[in-house]
């Protein structure tokens, strides 16, 4: 990459198209060989098969995945344990990644859309568990957890993805994102009992993941995990875009936590793209908020549920994570005033994110326990405290570890998070109708709409689908590959007419070519 001096870019933030990939924890109960790959395959095959039967009455080809792509061979699902990989009509990718079922949401245009898509992923996993029962022996059950750690030193990721202007020097992202990832844990953490991976003992910490970060910057995701991940796989026009792959985050169940996690990140990235930190520094602000030793600082912040611990900045100042967050917020408010939030969800979502961000920081300073309806770590902590108080439990009691784990159980009847929702203790930003619709329908505002639309209309014609292309079999002729290098093209507004008038894949291709 050509290094351009910051400030000379005259940069323009690009729309913050975003998505979340979640690896779910998985167990196969009641089986002698509890192979997690098999269990994950059963979930996905069970889901796909069930919905093929349910929805696609005309589908007569057993070797092709009704929802999309890559069912190699025609083995029945019972014995198919090789990597399963499907694309759903909602534009999501659902597959086996290593030893976990992984759900990648479709591309979304803003934080609220992504909250819906992420919650829809939980429902897909929920239905998959039910569907998998048909493939299992009596007494067996596949259960998934939306968390990031088994409490024994094994972690699995929840990765966020954001569209970023290719022209932004990566060093600039690193400089502003290291302190960001260290300090945002105060509202993104999903909470965890104890510590792992050689971290100092602690009763309870903010984040599932903090103990696992060992480097500041790098390409790895499984060993020596870096706080800033350098994977460069844009899934879009590489001349224009970068896809920032964020691995330093927890799986959230609280919708407000997901909303803040994504919404604030979008604004911060837009500020970096627009050189806003540098501009503010010229007016007496800090150049950056670089933290001395960000790797140990991740743990310092995570290990302190009072949110009072301080970290040292490169200029010698000591600040709490919340104080650093206040600085980012003040800049973001200024950015919103001067530049607007058109690239980060507009005033409706971006403005709301700013207001909620401010509220959360204020409460974290005043009394974090008031956020038990908004943030996962606080919701979980409140539950643990209530049980500890009633039953006289000490930290280290296995019941508290069980409560921690079962908070993340995705089965509605077992999930402690869902129980908090049902008793009105947790705030929702979505309706269940919206979420269920999003299990089958793609977001309207991105290319996911086109991908999902093709799969819904012509499942047999979609030979393969990927983030940035779709391959159609239109009969006789060679396969047609439709590139989708621009994440915001292919939205409902773009292709509604096309879908309304093209009655076959061949017609669709013909119209696209004309």
């Amino acid at each position: 990459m050509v290094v351009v001096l910051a400030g000379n870019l005259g940069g323009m933030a690009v729309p913050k198209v975003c998505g979340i990939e979640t690896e779910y924890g998985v167990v196969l109960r009641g089986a002698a060989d509890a192979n997690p790959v098999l269990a994950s395959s059963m979930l996905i095959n069970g889901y796909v098969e069930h919905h093929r039967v349910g929805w696609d009455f005309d589908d007569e080809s057993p070797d092709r995945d009704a929802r999309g792509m890559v069912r190699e061979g025609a083995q029945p699902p019972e014995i198919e344990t090789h990597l399963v990989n499907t694309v759903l009509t909602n534009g999501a990718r659902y597959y086996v990644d290593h030893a976990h079922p992984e759900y990648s949401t479709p591309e979304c245009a803003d934080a609220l859309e992504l909250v819906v898509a992420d919650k829809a992923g939980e429902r897909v996993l929920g239905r998959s568990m039910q569907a998998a029962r048909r493939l299992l022996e009596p007494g067996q059950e596949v259960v998934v957890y939306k968390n990031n750690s088994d409490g024994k030193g094994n972690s699995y990721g929840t990765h966020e993805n954001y569209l970023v202007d290719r022209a932004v020097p990566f060093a600039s992202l690193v400089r502003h994102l290291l302190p960001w990832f260290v300090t945002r844990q105060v509202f993104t953490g999903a909470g965890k009992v104890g510590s792992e991976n050689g971290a100092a003992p602690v009763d309870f910490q903010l984040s599932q993941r903090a103990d696992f970060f060992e480097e500041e910057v790098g390409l790895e995701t499984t060993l020596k995990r870096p706080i800033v991940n350098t994977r460069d796989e844009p899934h879009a026009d590489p001349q224009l875009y970068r896809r920032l792959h964020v691995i330093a985050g927890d799986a959230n169940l609280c919708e407000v936590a997901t909303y803040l996690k994504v919404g604030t990140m979008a604004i911060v990235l837009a500020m970096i793209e627009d050189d806003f930190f540098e501009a503010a520094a010229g007016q007496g602000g800090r150049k950056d908020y670089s933290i001395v030793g960000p790797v140990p600082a991740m743990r310092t912040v995570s290990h302190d549920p009072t949110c009072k611990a301080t970290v040292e900045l490169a200029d010698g100042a000591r600040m709490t994570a919340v104080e650093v967050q206040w600085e980012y917020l003040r800049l973001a408010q200024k950015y919103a005033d001067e530049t607007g939030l058109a690239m980060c969800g507009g005033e409706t979502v971006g403005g709301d994110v700013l207001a909620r961000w401010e509220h959360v920081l204020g409460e974290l300073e005043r009394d974090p326990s008031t956020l038990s309806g908004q943030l996962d770590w606080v919701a979980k902590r409140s539950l643990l405290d209530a049980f500890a108080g009633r039953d006289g439990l000490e930290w280290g009691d296995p019941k508290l570890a069980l409560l921690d784990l079962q908070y993340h159980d995705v089965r509605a009847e077992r999930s402690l998070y869902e129980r908090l929702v049902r008793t009105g203790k947790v705030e929702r930003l979505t309706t269940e109708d919206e979420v269920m619709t999003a299990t089958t329908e793609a977001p309207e505002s991105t290319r996911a709409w086109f991908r999902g639309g093709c799969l819904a209309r012509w499942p047999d014609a979609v030979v393969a689908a990927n983030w940035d292309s779709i391959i159609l079999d239109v009969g006789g002729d060679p396969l047609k590959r439709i590139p989708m290098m621009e994440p915001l093209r292919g939205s409902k507004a773009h292709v509604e007419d096309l879908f309304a008038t093209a009655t076959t894949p061949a017609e669709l291709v013909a119209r696209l070519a004309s």
Partner: protein
Amino acid sequence: MPEQQRRERRTPKERVDEEADEVTAAPSERGEKLKGELDDLLDEIDEVLEENAEDFVKSYVQKGGE
């Protein structure tokens, strides 16, 4: 350890009786109501918690990911 707790756990009925006694002495009825709701929630959760916490947590092992 978990078995011991299970034995110590009060039944909902015992808890209700105890609460009834507390209400007369409590300064805030609303506080008591909230506490009652919380107690109900904890009881509900007890009913769906996995059996044998220690073994269950021990058996939850995830290898390979990302």
